[in-house]
């Protein structure tokens, strides 16, 4: 649970989590194991198609929510179930408490339900004098520790066996060993009594089938089965988003959910309950059954054109499993009740902006969650949308407004950058790094050396570069430089230009171009992001070129994915935007697929070279093969572990959360050094800045280059 009320407090909590040795090791192991389990369990399956099917089914259900609810209600009532609709969390809790009271229940057992966590049901029931016991092992553990879950599927993942043994020792008043198998048996014995004595069982639901009034619950432990069977009364609490048209749609979810959640093909139990079933604990041998559907904003969210998609979520927890931020600090810091990428979003909608405000900043925009999501939700885009809404609702922080203003005015921005060149003089100590930044700028930034601005930006040397354009060009290619290459690393562009020109590409560099706008979009400066996008579209005479290329994966991916939606309100821009999107490509793909670079073009050396896959290239653009082929064509390619895991840069993220950025970078550098390579290449200037800065700081022997620099040095 998130309690910090400002960024400073939040950062303090993050630091505490970072200092928790057990958590760090456990999370690291989990992140690595999870990926390999998932790869295995999806082997031979078309994962993309499975995701698309779930997304389509969920979208249809979201659009049809009201009708599905009515249908469900009619069918379930026919079979003796009481169906309720609670508008708010409060209403749901009161309803459930009154059901318990009416039926003279005292003891309540629960099986795991995120929806009941969302409404904080336990507190209300306990305050009303009921005894409430969680029966899912992990939930029971955290209930006794008075904690919230740190994972949606494995709620106690932050605890060690020793902590559990201690807890069980105090509960049973007998010394318990920290043998996990034995601890599980202790829970088996302790909890059986509650199953036997309970009057009412509360469960969640993974799906609710409208056409038969059936609810479905997936579980591994079997506690949900007992919770639904032994007590006289069964209450299921279920978000409106769990409504499905038919069993067919639910089976699509059942197929992907456990695979994504834990790398299992299926959970041990998938229970489907239609109507009030036999219950010999009641005089009439029939279960007293209630289903409480929870709205709590869902029906309005269904109509939200940008964020409504989040209702597709099947709560598999995978967006936490792959998140580099979650990996560092765990669920208490990466969510309020819902956890991981989807947790950042749902906190805003279900628990309010006060809770969401700090959390929503803690996303580095690496895209790993979007890539894994069982329902194909564009989570990072929604996170950015919420940042924009928060800025609009509460006013933007001064830095982001300022940056927005500056970026929206290219001339001002570039003048400031040029001025920076003089201003930095006293602090570079004649090196390409900033050496003595004033304390206020350096706070927390010591983990990496920051580069100095180049003596001349690329736009000032463009005339020289242009002279090498081929006389009889095969292709016309426009360069989109992006700020980092234009002003910090022009040599990367020079190298790239040489490679492209050598294969017959005539280059153009439209001077009106500026920053792609990703930094302001990340800060939720919607207007500035739109203005910058428009400025760039205007700067390019798009119809004229065969390709537009950027050596910065973040720029390419931002232009391709965000420009159409940023400019959708402007009909006159549509043709140019679409052409820009269609012609936009990344450097590796252009060299490999279009210009046809192969081994024959390079003097292949013995040098061992490893690779870092930029987030916005490997996931943002889905480009994974081309850069590796190119490296292998020019050098001895030595893969390193977790090549596709974020380096921790994330633009302003690394300034806002330096401790997080630094911890992510550390692992990247460790993997880089362990690969045994003497050079690391990557194809994004931001990643170069982060990894090179870190390598410099730790005095690593590994040289960090942009792919273009490596290739140009090996050209025949």
């Amino acid at each position, binding site marked *: 649970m998130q309690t910090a009320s400002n960024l400073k407090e939040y950062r303090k909590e993050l630091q505490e989590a970072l200092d928790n040795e057990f958590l760090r090791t*456990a999370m690291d192991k989990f992140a690595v194991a999870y990926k390999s389990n998932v790869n295995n369990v999806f082997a031979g399956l078309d994962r993309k198609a499975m995701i698309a099917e779930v997304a389509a089914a969920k979208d249809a259900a979201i659009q049809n929510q009201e009708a599905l609810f009515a249908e469900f209600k009619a069918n379930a009532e026919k079979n003796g179930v009481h169906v309720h609709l609670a508008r708010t969390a409060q209403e749901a809790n009161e309803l459930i408490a009154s059901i318990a009271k009416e039926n003279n229940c005292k003891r309540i057992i629960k099986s795991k339900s995120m929806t009941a966590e969302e409404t904080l049901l336990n507190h209300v029931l306990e305050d009303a004098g009921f005894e409430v016991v969680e029966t899912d092992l992990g939930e029971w553990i955290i209930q006794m520790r008075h904690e919230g879950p740190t994972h949606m599927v494995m*709620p106690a993942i932050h605890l060690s066996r020793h902590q559990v043994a201690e807890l069980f020792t105090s509960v049973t008043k007998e010394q318990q060993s920290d043998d996990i198998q034995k601890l599980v048996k202790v829970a*088996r014995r302790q909890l059986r*009594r509650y199953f*036997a004595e309970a009057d009412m069982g509360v469960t969640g639901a993974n799906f609710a089938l409208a056409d038969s009034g059936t609810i479905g619950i997936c579980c*591994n432990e079997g506690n949900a089965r007992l919770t639904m069977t*032994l*007590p006289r009364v069964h209450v299921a609490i279920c978000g409106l988003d769990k409504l499905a048209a038919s*069993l067919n749609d639910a089976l699509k979810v059942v197929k992907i959910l456990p695979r994504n959640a834990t790398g299992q093909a299926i959970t041990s139990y998938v229970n489907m309950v239609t109507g009030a079933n036999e219950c010999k604990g009641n005089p009439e041998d029939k279960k007293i059954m209630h289903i409480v559907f929870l709205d709590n904003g869902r029906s309005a969210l269904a109509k939200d054109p940008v964020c409504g998609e989040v209702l597709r979520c099947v709560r598999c927890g995978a967006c936490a499993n792959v998140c580099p931020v979650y990996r560092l600090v765990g669920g208490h810091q990466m969510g309020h009740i819902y956890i991981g990428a989807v947790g950042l979003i749902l906190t805003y909608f279900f628990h309010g902006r006060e809770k969401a405000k700090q959390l929503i900043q803690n996303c580095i925009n690496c895209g790993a969650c979007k890539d894994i999501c069982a329902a194909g939700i564009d989570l990072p885009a929604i996170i950015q949308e919420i940042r924009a809404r928060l800025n609009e609702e509460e006013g933007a922080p001064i830095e982001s407004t300022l940056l927005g203003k500056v970026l929206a005015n290219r001339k001002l921005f570039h003048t400031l950058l040029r001025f920076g060149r003089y201003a930095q003089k006293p602090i570079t100590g004649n090196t390409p790094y900033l050496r003595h930044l004033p304390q206020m700028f350096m706070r927390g930034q010591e983990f990496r050396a920051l580069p100095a601005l180049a003596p001349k930006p690329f736009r000032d040397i463009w005339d020289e570069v242009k002279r090498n354009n081929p006389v009889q060009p095969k292709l016309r290619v426009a360069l989109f430089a992006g700020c980092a290459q234009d002003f910090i690393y022009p040599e990367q562009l020079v190298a790239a230009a040489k490679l492209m020109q050598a294969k017959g590409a005539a280059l153009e560099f439209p001077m009106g171009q500026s920053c792609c706008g990703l930094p302001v979009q990340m800060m939720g400066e919607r207007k500035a992001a739109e203005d910058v996008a428009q400025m760039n579209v205007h700067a390019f005479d798009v119809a004229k070129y065969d390709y537009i290329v950027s050596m910065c994966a973040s720029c390419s991916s931002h232009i391709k994915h965000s420009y159409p939606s940023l400019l959708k309100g402007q009909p006159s821009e549509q043709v140019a935007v679409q052409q820009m999107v269609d012609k936009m490509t990344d450097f590796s793909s252009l060299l490999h697929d279009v210009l046809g670079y192969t081994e024959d073009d390079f003097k292949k050396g013995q040098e061992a070279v490893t690779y870092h896959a930029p987030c916005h290239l490997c996931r943002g653009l889905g480009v994974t093969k081309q850069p590796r082929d190119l490296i292998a064509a020019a050098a001895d390619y030595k893969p390193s572990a977790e090549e596709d895991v974020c380096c921790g840069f994330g633009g302003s993220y690394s300034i806002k959360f330096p401790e997080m950025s630094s911890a992510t970078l550390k692992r990247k550098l460790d993997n880089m050094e362990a690969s045994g390579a003497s050079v690391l290449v990557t194809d994004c200037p931001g990643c170069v800045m982060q990894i090179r800065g870190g390598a410099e700081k730790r005095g690593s022997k590994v040289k960090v280059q942009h792919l273009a620099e490596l290739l140009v040095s090996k050209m025949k």
Partner: protein
Amino acid sequence: MTATPLASLFMEKANAVSISVTEVASMADVFSYALHLCKEKEPYQNLLPKGVNSTTVAAKPADLGDAQKVIAAPGLAEEDLKALQKLGEKEGILVISCGLRNFVAGLDVSVTMATMGIAETATCVLDCSDEEVRLASMLCEDHVMVLPKSVLQQSSFDVEQAIEALQKKGPRFISFISGASRTADIERVLALGVHGPLQLHVLLLEA
């Protein structure tokens, strides 16, 4: 035994999730499997402390000795149940088919009949609308499920229509069962038998 591709697939997937699968020729084989299993195992652990205060279940029946082994077999055909009870008697094993609310403390072995099977996930489909069947599948330490090869299908979508037809007829409780009761909630270490069976046995019946 006929080795059908679906049966082979089922066995392969079952092995991966520690379900024990055995091919059997007849119900007589099922009974001897269950009895043998029950005889060899340690008597079940009594999970209820004295003084349980419940209006809906009873602690272990008072007249049962501590070491009395129990098999629950609800949902068997009448003559099958009789046959099993007779065999059980010889071994000193009590075979019951109802009153499972009196066995919430535990029991040794349950035998249930799957109505369908899904090969690609090693799943038995159990219609447990009968509460005794539902309880039997949860309260035992070893769960023996009989799955006729003739009802084996490839995927969940192949059993969809049959299940939907049942669900549209009135109250139903249908479960896919694809393993023992399991958890990985402590340090992600797999442990079997957290609330329900410690082991799932599937007997693939030639029929």
